[in-house]
């Protein structure tokens, strides 16, 4: 790890000001990606702006037909939240399956989304549930937020404050883990709300999380696992590595989507 300066703002506004003053600064949320990267000397920010003491960033509440989760809310808190468990159990289950207990006790939803790791779990929930990312500057719809691997719509000085999830009628997340890292190799979040079914896939796309048009089309008429029988997903644009070829990932997407739909219907 290289030397850096450390800041602990009390408000989001202060954090934004500090970001403006320190062009090479990084925002520290749970640090579950950033700190290991710094330890390996793969990242060398001049300053860390720790949101740990900034007010009003944590917590879970229901607002109308939405569950709103503060950016600094830890995965473990989402996993064990009675509110989330009641309203969107699929989201609680997803949070409970991120990393290991140490990661879940430190990692945050805002940090995960801002990082947009192509194999992270949360982006699939945000995209499938059609959530809204609320920053210190604006509201960003999920479909516009994710802009490719490790890339988001966040601008300089922009900090995620909370995420608002519309409550679906049915939803589930199914993860096929990478055998080594146990990150999602193919993770599929399916959500049905009204007449719309959205299917978001993480871990598989070479450009990060995406919606599977093939699966959504198949489920449009009938939200049922059988609807996905025979669905073919194109391998083009999917990751290929020693753990999974793009063809294998393409094969797994409808298989895992089918399991997710079955899970959603069982609830």
């Amino acid at each position: 790890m290289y030397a850096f300066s450390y800041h602990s703002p009390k408000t989001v506004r202060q954090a934004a000001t500090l970001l403006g003053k320190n062009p090479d600064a990084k925002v520290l949320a749970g640090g579950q990606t950033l700190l290991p990267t710094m330890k390996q000397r793969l990242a060398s920010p001049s300053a860390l702006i720790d949101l740990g003491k900034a007010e009003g960033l944590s917590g879970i509440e229901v607002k109308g037909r939405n569950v709103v989760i503060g950016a600094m809310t830890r995965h473990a808190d989402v996993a064990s939240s009675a509110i989330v468990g009641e309203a969107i159990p699929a989201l609680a289950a997803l949070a409970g399956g991120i990393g290991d207990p140490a990661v879940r006790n430190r990692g945050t939803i805002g940090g995960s989304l801002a990082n947009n790791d192509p194999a992270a779990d949360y982006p699939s929930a945000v995209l499938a549930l059609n959530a809204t990312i609320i920053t210190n500057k604006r509201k960003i719809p999920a479909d516009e937020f994710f802009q490719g691997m490790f890339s988001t719509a966040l601008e300089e000085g922009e900090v995620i404050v909370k995420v608002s999830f519309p409550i679906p009628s049915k939803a589930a997340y199914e993860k096929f883990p990478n055998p080594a890292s146990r990150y999602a190799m193919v993770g599929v979040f399916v959500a049905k709300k009204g007449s719309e079914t959205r299917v978001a896939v993480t871990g598989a796309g070479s450009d990060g999380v995406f919606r599977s048009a093939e699966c959504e089309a198949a489920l449009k008429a009938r939200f049922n696992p059988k609807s996905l029988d025979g669905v073919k997903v194109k391998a083009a644009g999917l990751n290929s590595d020693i753990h999974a070829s793009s063809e294998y990932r393409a094969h797994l997407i409808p298989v895992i989507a089918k399991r997710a739909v079955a899970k959603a219907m069982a609830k």
Partner: protein
Amino acid sequence: MSSTTGIGASVLRKEDIRFITGKGQYTDDVNRQGQAHAYFLRSPHAHATIKKLDVSAAKKAAGVLDVLTGDDLAHDKIGGLICGWMIHNKDGSPMKAGAHPALAQGKVRYVGDHVAVIIAETYAQAKDAAELVVVDYGVLPAVVDMNTASKGPAIHDVAPDNVVYDWHLGDKAATEAAFKNAKHITKIDLVNNRLIPNAMEPRAAVGDYDAGTEVFTLYTTSQNPHVARLVLSAFVGIAPEHKLRVIAPDVGGGFGSKIFIYAEETVCVWASKRVGRPVKWTADRTEAFLSDAHGRDHITHAELATDEKGKILGFRVKTKANLGAYLSTFSSCVPTYLYAPLLSGQYDIPAIYVEVEGIYTTTAPVDAYRGAGRPEATFVVERIMEKTARELGQDPAAFRRKNFVKSFPHQTPVIMCYDTGNYSASLDLALEMADYKNFGKRKKESAKNGKLRGIGFSAYIEACGIAPSAAVGSLGAGVGLWESAEVRVNPVGTVEVLTGSHSHGQGHETTFAQLVSDRLGIDINSVSIVHGDTDKVQFGMGTYGSRSGSVGMSAISKALDKVIAKGKKVASYALEASEKDIEFKDGRFSVAGTDKSLAFGEVALQAYIAHKFTGAELEPGLKEGAFYDPTNFTFPSGVHICEVEIDPDTGVTTIAKWTAVDDFGNVINPMIVEGQVHGGIAQGVGQALFEGAHYDKDGQLVTASYMDYTMPRADNLPSFQIGMTNTPCTTNPLGLKGCGEAGAIASPPAVINAITDAIGHENIAMPATPLAVWTAIQSSASKLAAE
């Protein structure tokens, strides 16, 4: 007492209290006064000449004490690392061993090779300064694939075609003749995947030079501190043995990878004199992946000849073994003498011929890893046995039984003489425990759920306690393979056992104490086991190859015999009786036919106060040593049966059932033995389903972290069904055979035999990852569609 703490009792491990309460003392826990820290600058290239190496800026960086290179080693006349086993080619010429300097001298040969060492006040300063070292590399093509390695470029000038040796064993003519008479020939092509050891504790070293006494002390993560001292003295030339102390304190797992003498500890101990300060290094996990000696990595073609009834007539095997960029300490013997002599398995095979080519590649050195040659041999034997049974339409258990060795001793055509065994007994018990007769029902049940179920056998043979010394010497070993022990009885009757064996997870502090408790009839808590320090313990050979029981404990047993004999002498004076009338039983020396007796501790006291005998009659004291050189290997054996269930939609293999029946001869502590079996199976399943070191075509290690290198985890494994049979070894005093590697040896072929049974064809390599299994199923599906 002996019933609860003696031989055969599942005594809880004495050492675990300190390990699980964080009070273990590992090398990284050692901190010396004035200690500096070493950081190794490593090659980012698989193969390159060093055109220029400029360390001047790094030397001036904050906190830096010195930056040392291969030139400095040469200046100080520090020799290279050695390979301790000479292998001869088919034509009798010696193998081609390239030089192995601890810091590169003009060339780097794998990613992670040591270019320079930076020694600074802090580790962070050393790491910062490393970025100031300027290296101008002349990048050469990497040599990664064994099949094309001969096309070069040469990694070492001494081996222009990158072949280290071209070796063979067995009777070629007799084997060819057997194949001419065969009714059926089974052919198989196999890859034994390359593994990275991943001990929980990474390698570490602290070198400490005392200018007053001119003694070097090296604290290091070693399985064999005396061997390390011998090599560093006699070959590397750090210091004469009496001026070099090697301490291997608590060691957190070795699996073979800590047998070897590496560049880092060599440099730390040498540099401690150069900089006049203790020098410490602890590997980070990436360094462990890159530079610990890897394991396995064979390509094999094998053929098995059988007659019309399915009796084996002959076996021929051709193997290429990847030895990496340099010959590590015992690398040369692993794919030769630790491999080929195991190719007879549990079977009566009249003729065997084996050819092995050792190949240099621009990858990390490859050496012994849990099983060392024996897992590779067992994989070949048990895969081709299963395939042959299938091709002949015979039941795999019955086919094996038909070919078992049934009378002992049995001389194989490949060196080994099995002293004893009862292979049918293990098979019978395993078939019963595995409920083999109802497998068909379970398979149908799985099919109903859309799953493919398969069953696979592995009837393995092990050879432990590699020996005798004279025999291994005649085969090229540079060392003897005996073990030493000293039993020191204190005046109050407590006992210290100094052993040349080294414990790094095996539980010697418990099992060795059980032997002493049993034999001397004293409380197990009155016994302490001392190991791992060349200043405390007499020369010993260390722990590897499942030798600590059969060889190390045999040495202790011999020393205990001497202690008891001396005790009888002392007791005869103390009890005023004839020595021949003294009996020793349950911890008491007594005069036969009388009620006169003394407890062991009382006799010990008599030995030290020496009031009852004169110096002319008897030496005072009660301390005896022994060296034990076995007369043969020991031959553990057993049958493992693996049942898998495969999800054809994803290719995920689940181990549904595991039955292990092992014959380790006599057992000291069944709980510890079961633990060794569990760990061994987990490692073997790791090889079969998960682990695989992968270098890309440029020689970069793709699997250099846990993000990409898959370790087996608890949730990958079922609850094992463990059974044991017991035919005691006939060649050592305790009847022990060894259990440390059996699980890792037995399990890979059992898993792959089960998977190939489930998918209906043989075409799958290890690790059988979900991708590999799914791909294999696609090919069988397309094959079915085409038929």
